């Protein structure tokens, strides 16, 4: 990982966040999916807790296997998302980096990231006997339509009433406006940071951005999140100006599609460093920059803005749009190739990937490779097999250059 000064600030921020969540007596706790409209929660002073983020932390700390085994022992199939299994296990054993998550008062999930979350959150709702609010975000096949926006906005209005009932006070629209502003500001910094990777050589690589995702996922809508990314932006921008590479001797510039392999961060980092290959941009980290995409007059309505940005996430849109987006990144970031992580856990992210690879290679004339791995389950990962494929991919970039 590139050694950013700012990193210690992130640790402080995340520790304070989990500490407050574990100790608070006043604030309600809501478990929430990574792509759900958290702004409504912060508007009502509710602490959002992200089981996905926690599961990733467990895997990065090499604790996911034990937790998944506990879930599997209770009958959860190995074919279920490894995040879900890790979290079920953490809940059963009260294990993981912070000794399990604080119990939820209610749950909020959104289907823009997958449909697994519905069943996953139903399991939690039953176990804790708490209410579950589902924001149904339909798949965007051919661009956003008014119908899609209105359907989603209507659910936001229901969500406000739901939150008013839970907290016993009227929904705070003024606070929502403030939270939304902070959320947009953080997303804008995040996007600017990721865009600094257009610099050759890149001052930040994708393994860095995976690590630095924590606050934008969990704390967007807070001032602390804005401050953090502002500081990180300034540091990375300084490095870009000074041409300090994140991968010394950068020779290849590559896109990474899909989630990281959390339990292999260190090994993959060394692997890519040795080969002077920088992972420059990812569809995954980019997903949290969306809120800053809308500044037009037509998006003056905050509800429509939120609806648009939560519908318009990479894995919630169709094949043509994905191809168009990926091809754009290949040029914009001056890439020499792309890696697609066919992720056993994340089916909606991985479906159609071989077709996507073929199409993207044809359109851009640049090589790509698909690796079969998993975001959280080391038991379905083989170093030798993955690295043989990655080496062959790097050879093909070498041959093409």
């Amino acid at each position, binding site marked *: 990982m590139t050694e950013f000064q700012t990193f210690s600030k992130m640790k402080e921020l995340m520790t304070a966040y989990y500490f407050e969540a574990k100790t608070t007596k006043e604030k309600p706790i809501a478990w929430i999916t990574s792509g759900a409209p958290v702004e409504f929660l912060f508007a009502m002073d509710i602490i959002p807790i992200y089981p996905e983020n926690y599961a990733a932390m467990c895997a990065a700390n090499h604790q996911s296997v034990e937790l998944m085994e506990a879930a599997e022992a209770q009958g959860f199939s190995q074919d279920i998302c490894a995040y879900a299994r890790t979290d079920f296990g953490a809940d059963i054993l009260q294990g993981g980096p912070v000794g399990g998550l604080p119990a939820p008062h209610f749950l909020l999930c959104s289907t823009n990231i997958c449909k697994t979350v519905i069943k996953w959150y139903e399991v939690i709702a039953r176990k804790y006997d708490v209410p579950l609010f589902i924001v149904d975000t339909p798949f965007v096949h051919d661009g956003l339509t008014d119908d899609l926006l209105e359907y989603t906005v209507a659910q936001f209005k229901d969500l406000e009433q739901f939150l008013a009932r839970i907290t016993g006070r009227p929904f705070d629209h003024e606070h929502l406006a403030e939270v939304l502003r902070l959320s947009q500001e953080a997303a804008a910094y995040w996007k600017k940071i990721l865009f600094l990777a257009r610099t050759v050589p890149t001052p930040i690589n994708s393994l860095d951005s995976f690590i630095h995702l924590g606050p934008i996922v969990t704390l967007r809508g807070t001032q602390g999140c804005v401050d953090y990314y502002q500081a990180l932006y300034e540091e990375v921008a300084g490095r870009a100006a000074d041409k300090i590479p994140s991968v010394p001797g950068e020779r290849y510039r590559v896109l990474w599609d899909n989630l990281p392999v959390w339990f292999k961060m260190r090994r993959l980092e060394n692997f890519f460093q040795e080969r002077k290959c920088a992972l420059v941009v990812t569809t995954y980290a980019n997903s949290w920059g969306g809120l800053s995409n809308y500044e037009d007059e037509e998006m003056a309505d905050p509800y429509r803005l939120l609806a648009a940005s939560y519908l318009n996430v990479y894995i919630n849109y169709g094949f043509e749009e994905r191809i168009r987006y990926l091809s754009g990144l290949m040029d914009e970031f001056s890439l020499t190739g792309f890696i697609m992580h*066919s992720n056993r856990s994340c089916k909606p992210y991985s479906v159609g990937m*071989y077709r996507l690879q*073929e199409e993207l*290679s044809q359109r851009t004339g640049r*090589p790509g490779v*698909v690796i*079969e791995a998993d975001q959280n389950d080391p038991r*379905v*990962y*083989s170093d*030798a*097999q993955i690295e*043989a*494929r990655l*080496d*062959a991919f790097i*050879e*093909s970039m070498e*041959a093409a250059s």
Partner: protein
Amino acid sequence: MRFWGGIDVGSLSADAVIIDEEGRLLGHAILPTGRDSREAGSRAYAGALEAAGLTPGDVVRVYSTGYSRARVREAEGAKTEIACHARGAHALYPDVGTIIDIGGQDSKAIQVGKGGRVLNFVMNDKCAAGTGRFLEVMAGALETPLDHLDELAAQSTETLTISSICTVFAESEVVSLISQGKKPADIAMAVSRAIARRTVGLATRVGVSGRVVMTGGVAKNRAVVDLLAEILGAPVDVPDEPQIVGALGAALFARDERG
């Protein structure tokens, strides 16, 4: 005269070749990898040198390939098996368009362009379905030596199906067919068809074009090769010694490095 070497240490076998300036094959050796891959590579190399009537001092440079390529003591450089199979097959068949390589623990299809350049490739996912190991396990269940499996399949008269793609489940299928009193020849044929179908699926994904060449140990199984050709609807060429194509490619890369 100057000579170059290639050593391919895979999961099941260690193969080595010696070539001359023209890329002509002077000697080769194929040995089981066993538990010490470094030692296996050295022994295969010694065997190839002996077959060529040469000593290590005669060899300018050695390249390695295969899963244990980084562990080969004699090698000055390494290339992946994908690049090496493409290079080696192209040397043997200059008009090759598609390579199907089935080794011990993986199978791959490679699309080859001009000069043996890799255009695209696909490999099996992490499971052993459709690999040499699959055949090895099935041969074990049939109590037939691996290199006799195709002779056995040739005597098949009844069409049976192995439906599972998983090596472990397919083995239970074989065992249950045996217990149903099915003929070993028919089972051997069903096993060969299972691996051929799986491989065609892989090859189709990368796109089959031009001359199709099959390399790797499984190419020695005539039944699998014939079934592949039948399902693909195209002839499949197999080099005289398909197992050393990767090592040959490595030797050619060693020769082409300047100096």
